[in-house]
């Protein structure tokens, strides 16, 4: 079982190192296949682990394996250790499985880019980092993975480094995640100060003062929010779409951005001792899913629309994990990985076919030329909106239901948000759909469309899309909470759903009904506006501008953090560093030299002056002696 986990972890790293060392001595395709194989090997390892775990008793499904002591000081030490338990097993499967498909996809997508090797080295490195994150056997190692995925996300967002916008987006993503890392680190410092350890066990069974607990939880939540682009740390995600589309699919949809959810599930004992903070997490999710959904309504870049929907879906997961229904959150994470990766990859097909065009206003009627893409996208869209029998339906509804299960006033607020979110999802998703696929191809499309040897894309691209379309359809059947819930049971030893968050069947039913109706309503409205044009979009210029400016978060941060920092620094340099710090020494030197020339003046060259000094000196000494004797 541990063998599988090590294999799973190290295979992608090996791929990275191999590609880096070979450098330009191997053809591009070779690099691509090295990466792909390594990730699929990792998937094999994950499956191996899973199968072994299957054969064990639920109680004994968790195992820790240590390679060596990574960091040690005094009585604090953190090993380079992996933890395999149901939770990490699931994540390993998702990461390596979906990851493998996406890497395969990018063979076609990146074909012809002259720095392909670098791309594949990076992406393999990402998979490694992500696996380290989910397998990390203690908080420190988890933080390491946490940082490394941020790093690889930086590398991949800025992959096309001649584009200033890409470089800027990459930096922004990294810095915001660094902020999250910092808050997590601070949380860890508190733990170390109390328990002298960062092991899961040591810190999950200890009871700290409620302040400490809350601070720790807040720190973790900060990291989670930054990584998962939850309000207020969400602004980097849309910009991250500067990266290649497979990157968006893998990192910014399927895996990395959902790490926040994993973190909450993994460290749920801490959160449960700080229940308030946990509910704040839920609230954040609720807020984010609404805000993101609203912003998505006005975006015109196909990838940004999907990006905002990602934010909103992660909002759902936070909601679920926050209220205590970890399994439901994780389940949505799973299905979301399928259909969101699918959506991105179909979008990628479209972009690829249109030579990099991403503005949906130019894409009308693409479906006529790309039927496969069209249908796959439809599957993803329906799954996203949560229309039965597609996967989203099963996972999303149970989350909203758990909110209802709380029964408290905020529980109901969450519930309403969930329903409203479902409506928005339907609206923006099908806005996208109606704008892009149906109808006669627009002149722009006709002009720019080019197929790949008569197909909509290279087989390496089409196969993964197909597979994911299948998964997005059937993936949800794994569990329908009212009737069967193997997934929840599987996770129970690692992350037991809280009793308060376990919905009754009735709650499940009417919640499902509500969400489906809301979703359908959204779809209908989209149809009416963008397909039939029977309803006009209300002008509401203020609201439109607000949404187009994403509620002015960027402007806000610019004004509150960046500009003041720059002003402060320039001020320091002009007013303090240059005049004071750098100048003091020279000034003192000048003074000394001035003194020197003063002393020099008494050296008149006149003999009598010299004698005078001698005489005066003698007289002085005599006088002093006569007085002092």
């Amino acid at each position, binding site marked *: 079982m541990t063998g599988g986990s090590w294999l799973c972890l190290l295979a992608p790293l090996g791929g990275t190192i191999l590609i880096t060392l070979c450098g330009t001595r191997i053809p591009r395709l070779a690099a691509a296949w090295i990466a792909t194989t390594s990730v699929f090997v990792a998937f094999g390892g994950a499956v191996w682990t899973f199968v072994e775990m299957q054969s064990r008793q639920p109680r004994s499904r968790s195992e820790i394996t240590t390679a060596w002591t990574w960091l040690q000081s005094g009585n604090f030490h953190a090993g380079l250790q992996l933890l395999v338990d149901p939770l990490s097993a699931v994540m390993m499967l998702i990461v390596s499985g979906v990851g493998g498909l996406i890497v395969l996809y990018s063979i076609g997508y990146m074909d012809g880019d002259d720095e392909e090797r670098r791309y594949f080295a990076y992406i393999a490195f990402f998979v490694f980092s992500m696996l380290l994150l989910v397998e990390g056997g203690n908080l420190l190692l988890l933080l390491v993975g946490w940082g490394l995925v941020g790093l690889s996300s930086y590398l991949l967002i800025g992959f096309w480094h001649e584009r200033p916008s890409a470089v800027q987006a990459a930096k922004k993503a990294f810095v915001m995640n660094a902020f999250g890392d910092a808050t997590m680190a601070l949380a860890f410092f508190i733990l170390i100060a109390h328990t002298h350890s960062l092991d899961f066990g040591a810190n999950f069974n200890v009871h700290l003062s409620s302040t400490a607990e809350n601070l720790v939880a807040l720190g973790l939540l900060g990291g989670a929010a930054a990584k998962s682009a939850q309000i207020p740390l969400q602004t980097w995600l849309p910009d991250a779409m500067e990266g290649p589309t497979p990157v968006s699919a893998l990192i910014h949809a399927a895996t990395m951005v959902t790490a926040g959810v994993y973190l909450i599930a993994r460290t749920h004992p801490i959160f449960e001792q700080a229940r308030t903070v946990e509910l704040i997490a839920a609230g954040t999710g609720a807020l984010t899913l609404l805000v993101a959904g609203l912003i998505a309504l006005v975006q015109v870049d196909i990838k940004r629309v999907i990006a905002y929907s990602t934010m909103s879906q992660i909002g759902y997961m936070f909601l679920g994990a926050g209220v205590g229904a970890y399994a439901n959150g994780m389940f949505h994470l799973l299905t979301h990985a399928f259909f969101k990766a699918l959506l991105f990859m179909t979008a990628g097909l479209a972009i690829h076919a249109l030579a990099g065009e991403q503005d949906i206003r130019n894409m009308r009627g693409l479906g006529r030329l790309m039927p496969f893409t069209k249908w796959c996208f439809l599957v993803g869209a329906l799954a996203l909106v949560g229309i039965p029998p597609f996967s989203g339906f099963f996972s999303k509804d149970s989350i909203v239901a758990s909110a209802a299960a709380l029964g408290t006033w905020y529980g109901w607020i969450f519930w309403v948000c969930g329903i409203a979110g479902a409506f928005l999802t339907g609206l923006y998703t099908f806005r996208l759909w109606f704008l892009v696929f149906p109808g006669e191809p627009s002149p722009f499309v006709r002009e720019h469309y080019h197929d790949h040897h008569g197909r909509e894309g290279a087989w390496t691209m089409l196969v993964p899309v197909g597979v994911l379309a299948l998964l997005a359809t059937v993936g949800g059947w794994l569990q329908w909470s009212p009737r069967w819930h193997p997934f929840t049971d599987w996770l129970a030893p690692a992350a037991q759903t809280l009793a308060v968050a376990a919905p009754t069947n009735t709650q499940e039913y009417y919640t499902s009904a509500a969400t489906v109706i809301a979703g359908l309503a959204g779809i209908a409205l989209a149809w009416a506006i963008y397909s039939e044009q029977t309803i006009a979009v209300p002008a509401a210029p203020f609201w439109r501008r607000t949404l187009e400016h994403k509620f002015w978060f960027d402007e806000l941060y610019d004004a509150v953090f960046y500009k003041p920092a720059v002003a402060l620094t320039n001020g320091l340099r002009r007013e303090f560093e240059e005049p004071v710090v750098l100048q003091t*020494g020279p000034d003192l030197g000048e003074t000394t030299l001035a003194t020197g020339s003063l002393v020099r003046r008494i050296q008149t060259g006149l003999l009598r002056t010299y004698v005078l000094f001698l005489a005066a000196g003698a007289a002085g000494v005599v006088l002093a002696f006569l007085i002092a004797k």
Partner: protein
Amino acid sequence: MNATSLTSILIWLPIAGAILIWVLPLSRYATGSLALLFSLAEVGFWIEQAARFDFSRSGLQMAERASWFGDLGVSYHVGVYGFSLWLVGLTVVAMAACTGYGFWVGRDRSRAYFGLMLLLTGATVGVFESQDLLVFYAFFEAMLIPLYVLIGVWGGARRMEATIKFVIYTMAGSLLMLAAIVVYGLQAGTFDLVDGPVSASRWLFLGFMVAFVIKAPLFPFHGWLPDAYREAPPEVSAVLSGVIAKAGLYGMLRIAIAKFPDPTSFYRTTVLALAAAALVYGSLLAFRATDFRGVVAYSSLAQSGLIALGLFAGTDLGFDGAVLQMVAHGLISTSLFLIAGAVERRTTTGEFRLLGGMARGRPALATLLMTVGIISLAVPGSASFAGEFLILAGVFQRAWWWSAIGAGAIVLAAMYMLRLISAVLHEARGSTVADEALDLRPGELALVVPLVAGLLFLSAWPAGISHHSFFGQSPAATVKGQFK
């Protein structure tokens, strides 16, 4: 050869080499190779020393002692502890790389140049190994002599002001230290660091600290730093920030903290405040610096502050983290300055507005600069992350706000380091970046790659240093107990 003599060999071998080079009328090439040979031999001897060092034994090891002049109790006393072992290693490795760089770029007046580089090596090793205050002071000063000439002769346009400023600034501190040494030694009756008693005198503590905070440097005593780092030849800047600055921090650990426990705790908050100021201030200025070396220079200021934060936290994690971070940052800034030199050789400038887009077609340069830069901004999993994590966790136990400040500064570090990377490697091609500007040549790779490899190794096993710097389970107790 018995183990103890290794200590002295490490000090005197390069000095002998320097004299040899000055005496022998060799060609530039021969001189360079000879110097390189000597510095590699240094590395070899150090590896031997590290191999023979017994981490399970307490106290000073491989000590050599001979009376220098007895009537005042001054003796030539050298030896190594765990942490000094690592710093010596850092010195010999970095100096070897920098000597190699000088050889690679073919410094003129080679005999003088290489002789001085070797002299510098010996003196610096001496600082880290000497266990007698006067010997320590002698080596501490001796470092200045070659540096003064190296900067002044082979430096940039404004080298003269820079070098005078550097020497006088640092001497201002160390001369006060000499006064403190005289007083301490005569009071104690011995100048020996191992036998010497602890002192409670705040004045003496301050006398020593002045020298160290200027050398390190800490805010606001860094007036010499920007000019020196900008005007010195790149390999010398590398030595300055990578190794020489560590001498000041080493002094804080070995003398100020170990010998003056009461004053240390009395002035702890003050020093921590200075360190934190250096950390934030340096990071901010690095963030707005307009050239490659400027960023690295101010980031070294910030790093000195961070390390001092760890040292004066006075906790187990703080000490271990500080030593680890000294070594990590030493390797980082050495490689960064060498890369800066490589860039300047190709583009004749370090100004950001004239640089950019060097990644395209120069994979080796891009990979190395990227790797070092990313390690230096303490991405989790890197050696410097381990160091900074320990330091901040350590100082957290002193008071939470220190580590809060530190964490904030780490975010700043990310900002300026990414700015550096993208300004050099990314976006549109800079006006001074010609197509002919080649990727790193094998010679340059041979210098930087080992340093980076060392960093990666440390990243994989930071405990290798963090757990092998002080004897026993609790570094704080070891320091309190005079490393016995």
